[in-house]
């Protein structure tokens, strides 16, 4: 239960047989925030100063250093940022274990003997999460960054002028800077919530015990991923979402398929429902809900706020450098990721609407190229896929059909349900589909949504095709290993060829058949 978990956290601070005393946590701490670290003496002027050492900051620093630039990297908290420490990576590790439990319980579906009543060991799963975090922390440790030619500073950065900033009393001058301070969980303003206590991704991975009952506020990607993972550890889970549509940004069928999958898992999804009050009663949290004119109350042991993320822009003294920003959208940038200060660029969650690891990575590369090497790369020219790592996963790239229609772009969509794919049948992973949208009457790919167990792995083929301007028909000629679930993409390409064969190709086929029949 949460109170117990909180107590465990407090015990941790007193030492003992606790997670932070594990070798894995020691190793991670040593890599991402060495206790004995001493900031270097700044050089006279850096080619590039990077503020924030999450995904975007690390990529920016490494990319610039690899090209020979003199680079400083400033981190307020932990190297690796959200992704490594409290975001993508630990959540995927936890999701992996939760999938194992789900499969064990469902073993008879796969022709294996099910073992009823398998107890889920949350602490064991979390130990694995910490081991994986430690392992991942090796590649971007303070020591390795230093070896790569990056001056690593720990401390809060604050601009002191258009081309300078301070960190722990030291002044760093720069030719160019990249702000990559990331984002932090948005805190819902619900009466009583702060007093009762709640989890976010920042502290959920510190739990050593799973709560018995969990309320997830917000049905976005993070909330959905964590809700399903916790549910599969045996936690009775309720998702409460203000908006009436489940996953409102996603393709409707994708949301429908996931909604059904959640129902199978036993997750209760309450849409069009607001949390109006929270109060602690002993170790429990009593949550009042309102849906239209219906009021109800649920009692849980923990609350997870999955209500989005807000850019981290506080404490940077951005005004001193003439950098425009606001607290909701973060740093204002143009299509070249340049801020209102021409020396300063931004990358990642601090400035982007799409707060994903891959977008942070891509934006950092663009920012460095534009800042240091006079490139004119545009953010809008990128093809950006994204994936929600639920089971099944939902991956998307390019335009949604509704956006195409809003822009007056006529489109056709080729749909292949996963139940038409042999490998999906063999794997008993038939839930989902591949939908590929093309310009009407052509095979130019505009976008795709994939819902499948491994949709995140499959979407890259479509991203590549869009980026390389490969038409859908051509994908029919790409040999896909049989049997694989990615064959669904080839089947969509086959359907496109059958529906609208290229005129020259059809002409050839007709001639050949005519010749054969002579």
């Amino acid at each position, binding site marked *: 239960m949460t109170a117990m978990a909180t107590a465990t956290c407090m015990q941790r601070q007193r030492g003992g047989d606790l997670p932070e005393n594990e070798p894995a946590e020691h190793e991670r701490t040593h890599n991402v925030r060495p206790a004995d670290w001493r900031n270097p003496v700044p050089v006279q002027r850096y080619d590039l100063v990077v503020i924030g050492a999450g995904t975007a900051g690390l990529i920016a620093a490494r990319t610039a250093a690899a090209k020979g630039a003199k680079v400083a990297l400033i981190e307020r908290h932990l190297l690796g940022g959200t992704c490594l420490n409290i975001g993508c990576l630990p959540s995927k590790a936890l999701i992996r274990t939760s999938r194992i439990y789900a499969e064990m319980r469902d073993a008879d579906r796969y022709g294996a003997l099910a073992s009823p009543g398998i107890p889920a060991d949350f602490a064991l799963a979390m130990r694995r999460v910490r081991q994986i975090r430690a392992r991942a922390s090796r590649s971007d440790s303070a020591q390795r960054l230093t070896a790569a030619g990056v001056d690593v500073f720990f401390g809060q950065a604050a601009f002191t002028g258009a081309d300078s900033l301070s960190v722990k009393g030291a002044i760093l001058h720069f030719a160019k800077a990249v702000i990559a301070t990331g984002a932090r969980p948005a805190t819902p303003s619900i009466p009583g919530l702060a007093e009762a206590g709640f989890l976010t991704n920042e502290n959920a991975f510190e739990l050593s015990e799973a709560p018995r009952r969990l309320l997830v506020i917000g049905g976005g990607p993070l909330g959905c991923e964590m809700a399903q993972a916790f549910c599969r550890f045996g936690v009775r889970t309720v998702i409460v979402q203000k908006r009436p549509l489940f996953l409102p940004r996603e393709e409707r069928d994708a949301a429908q398929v996931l909604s059904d999958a959640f129902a199978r898992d036993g997750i209760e999804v309450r849409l069009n429902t607001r949390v109006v009050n929270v109060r602690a009663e002993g170790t429990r949290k009593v949550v009042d809900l309102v849906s239209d004119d219906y009021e109800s109350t649920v009692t849980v042991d923990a609350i997870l706020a999955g209500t989005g993320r807000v850019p981290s822009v506080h404490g940077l003294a951005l005004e001193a450098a003439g950098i425009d920003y606001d607290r909701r959208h973060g740093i204002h940038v143009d299509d070249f990721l340049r801020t209102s200060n021409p020396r300063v660029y931004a990358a990642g969650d601090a400035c982007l609407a799409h707060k994903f690891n891959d977008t942070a990575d891509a934006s950092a590369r663009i920012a460095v190229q534009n800042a240091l090497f006079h490139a004119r790369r545009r953010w809008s020219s990128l093809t950006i896929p994204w994936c929600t790592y639920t089971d099944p996963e939902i991956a998307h790239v390019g335009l949604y059909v509704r956006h195409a229609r809003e822009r007056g772009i006529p489109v056709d969509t080729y749909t292949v349900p996963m139940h038409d794919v042999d490998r999906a049948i063999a794997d008993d992973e038939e839930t989902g589909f591949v939908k590929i949208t093309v310009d009407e009457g052509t095979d130019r790919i505009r976008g795709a949504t994939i819902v499948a167990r491994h949709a995140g792995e499959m979407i890259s083929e479509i991203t590549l095709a869009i980026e390389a301007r490969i038409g859908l028909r051509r994908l029919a000629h790409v040999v896909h290993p049989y049997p694989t679930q990615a064959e669904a993409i080839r089947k969509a390409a086959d359907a496109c060829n*059958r529906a609208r064969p290229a005129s020259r190709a059809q002409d050839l086929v007709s001639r050949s058949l005519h010749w054969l029949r002579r």
Partner: protein
Amino acid sequence: MDPITSSENEGLLDDVERAAFDYFRHTVNPANGLVADTTREHWPCSIAVVGFALSVYPVAVERGWVARDEALESSLTALRFFRDSDQRGAPDSTGYNGFYYHFLDMRSGKRIWRSELSMIDTAILIAGALTVRMYFGGETAREAELREIADQLYRRVDWRWAQNSGRTIMQGWKPESGFLHYGWEGYSESIILYVLALGSPTHPPAPDTYEAWTATYQWENLYDIDFLYAGPLFIHQFSHAWIDFRGIRDPFMRAKRSDYFENSRRAVLVQREYMRRNPGEFIGYDEQCWGLTACDGPNAADAGTANAGRRLFGYTARGVPYGPDDGTLAGWAAAASLPFAPEIALATMRTMARRYPEMVLDHRYASAFNPGLIDSDGRFWISPGYYGLDQGIVATMIENHRTQLIWRLMRNCAYIVTGLRRAGFAGGWL
């Protein structure tokens, strides 16, 4: 097997259509014209079912099942009730701004179940009112009164208010909490709603509302069939009860070189392809046995469902290819698709009735059945009682298949014609 003669087909259709019509006769409250949502005990009135009742009264007259005067009286009673109903929009009223609460008490006609003021169900009620308005064209005072009341009811509906300053029409409203809107996502049964709204001479919605609604359409190639996608079959049927979509096209269908009638035929083909594949391995599914649509369904608490081994969905909109699907079929869905794919639908009606005669006793379709859920007495699950919506769509669509009666009436309805034109429909009979 002997070929089935056309007279045998006519006999079958006559029996099914008559049985469907009888639902309304048996469930109407003659004092106020309200019709029960289902035959289950103490069930309230659904305003959409009243709309279907009004739509089939002319059918019954033409087929000699009731006298014209009786049908006129039933229609007038219902229309008078709605005209005189409490329109204050209070929690216990009947309606507001020309719309009506979805479920009403059968006797008092007041709101029940804290139901919502329903835009689509009001549209179906109004479509029924306009159907009798077009049919009862006689010179008698009572027929004139009927026409006048139907006109009043239609003109009273404030479609603009129902937009709530948005681009599309909201889906509901409650006195306790205001508008309900879950967003329009893709093709739905609501063409009739938008056409009626746009045809209004008094309170039409903004002219671009139809375009805004259709902006969420998805044209898909599924199982090698190109169509405007919607999973449940009823979506491909309901607006067709009143509007003859053969050959008329809105801008979307013009661009796709199709029409909504042809689209509904393709929806039948998609349904059959799904059934042939039967990804859920459900008992009874094949190309001759289909019908995933909005219908009743088994719940976990029902007898015989303990060993279902899967989730059961109760009353819900079942669809292909993404479900929900728990092995529950609506036998009536084939009958309601008769105009679009007559040979397929007739063959399916016969096959399903032969295999599962219990789900169509005395020629009246149960809302649904599930051939894979067997109780301790060896009987498969059948929805108890009957639903008015099912009977309404069966009767109207069989009649449209046989004589196009309702289509012909509504093709001459100026409001429908205006609404279609304002939505951008052109061509064909329009």
